[in-house]
């Protein structure tokens, strides 16, 4: 799995091609449309992160090699496009990497406004939740070592 710094730099490079916001948003919307749908069974309240403006569903599971696999969805397509980017960076990484991830690409591609708490679109809570999964899975591993 690629290093999360490299993936983020790759995204920044891709976005540097866009000269105006319109192209950027068209790209994000396309990402949103192509994000693999979350398993309908995972669209349960337990996985729901309620924003005031849009909602996010996030599911995390442990893979056999100890990585974390995320799937997510949103009712708003721009939110979903940004989710696709977050998943591209954090999916199938180790719990340690996820727990300590520094997501510098958001700012660099000019999407910080979407991850501001005042937007209330569920994304801030989603990132927090992803990291919490990292921490929780980390703790699980640590605990299992002692079994």
């Amino acid at each position, binding site marked *: 799995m690629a290093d999360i710094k490299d993936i983020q730099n790759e995204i920044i490079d891709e976005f540097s091609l866009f000269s105006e916001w319109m192209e950027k948003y*068209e790209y994000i*919307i396309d990402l949103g449309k192509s994000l693999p749908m979350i398993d309908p069974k995972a669209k349960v309240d337990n996985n729901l992160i309620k924003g005031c*403006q849009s909602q996010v569903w996030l599911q995390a599971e442990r893979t056999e090699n100890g990585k974390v696999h995320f799937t997510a969805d949103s009712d708003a*397509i721009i939110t979903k496009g940004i989710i696709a980017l977050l998943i591209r960076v954090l999916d199938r990484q180790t719990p340690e990497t996820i727990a300590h991830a520094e997501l510098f690409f958001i700012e660099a591609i000019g999407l910080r406004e979407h991850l501001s708490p005042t937007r209330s679109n569920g994304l801030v809570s989603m990132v927090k939740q992803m990291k919490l999964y990292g921490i929780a899975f980390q703790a699980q591993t640590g605990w299992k070592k002692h079994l």
Partner: protein
Amino acid sequence: MNVRTMIDIENIRKDFPILKREVNGYPLAYLDNGASAQRPAAVIDAIGHYYRMEHANVHRGVHFLSQEATRRYEEAREQLRVFINAAHDHEVLFTKGTTDSINLVANCFGRKFLAPGDEILITAMEHHSNIVPWQMICEEKGALLKVVPVADNGELEADAYAQLLNSRTRMVAMTHVSNTLGTINPVKAMIALAHERNIPVLLDGAQAVPHMAVDVQDLDVDFYTFSGHKMFGPTGVGILYGKEHWLRQMPPYQGGGNMIKTVSFEKTTYNTLPHKFEAGTPHIAGGIGLGEAARYLMQLGFDNIRAYEHELLEYATEKLTKTEGMRLIGTAPNKAAVLSFLIDGTHPYDVGMILDKLGIAVRTGHHCNQPLMDRFGIPGTIRASFAFYNTKAEIDRLAAGVERAVTMLQ
């Protein structure tokens, strides 16, 4: 009457400094007046002048400035009395805003007049601020909250209202104009019906006073509430109008300075109206600014404002309904200049984001009307809410922006 000759938009826009701003490289099209309107220079200047030249505490000094500040503050109250045509200045209380005004009534009226099994009647189109305070006092008192339903077109169901009024109803609390649907409720007739049973009525006028002349004596309403910031005045200040005989019977809201006549550790006697309900140092600059906003609106004239805004609403409705998949939420015949809508296959948040990129400010989401959204089975709407300084050119930009958003999103 030709409206365009009555209201000179280009000159009016010059009164509002913020309208000259650019947002995301476009001239600002501010269509979120329902959330908060902008202030004319007259209001900003009045506040500035007060702080630069006139500030002192009110109602408590012998010195010149205190006297002057008190006079200016009380003149503002008088201005607001005229604005809503109340019978007396002391029926016009300064509060922090609509929310504060409603909480005051729910608390003070509720403490005095509510008993277990009593009912408060609200409607399904209330802002959260006219639901939650009543829920809280009902819970405390063992009283029940009853709700008048809303029909598909966004009007209240008149028959249901008549049926819900009964001998246990202690108060009707409802909005004059819906912030989401734009519906102007037939409040005068509804008040008359409640009064046949001696039930007092509180109106939430937050969305009415920016758009139409309100005459509390003509309405015969018992309590009327509104916010400064939605009527082109300051934030943090608003009004509670209450009929004298109700205000007299209600216990004070908060204790403190200003609201007392005499204080000893054994017993405190309360000040006369309106001060009984105005504990502590008030938002003096806010009150003065609000008085100025009322003066500004009256000078412009509500006949002119209504006629022009009606024209804007008709124009916007016609323009926007051309978009395919457009669903208007709120189609009552009698509406204020508010347009709430959804477009098939798009989420309000996405449309709002793209409009923002085009310099167009609208609101998206549930507008603090969650039960109403549930009623219509929708997550939220896109809401464009107009003021007299908006133009048809801005509506053209809105319509074009919506088309563009739909093309991008679908």
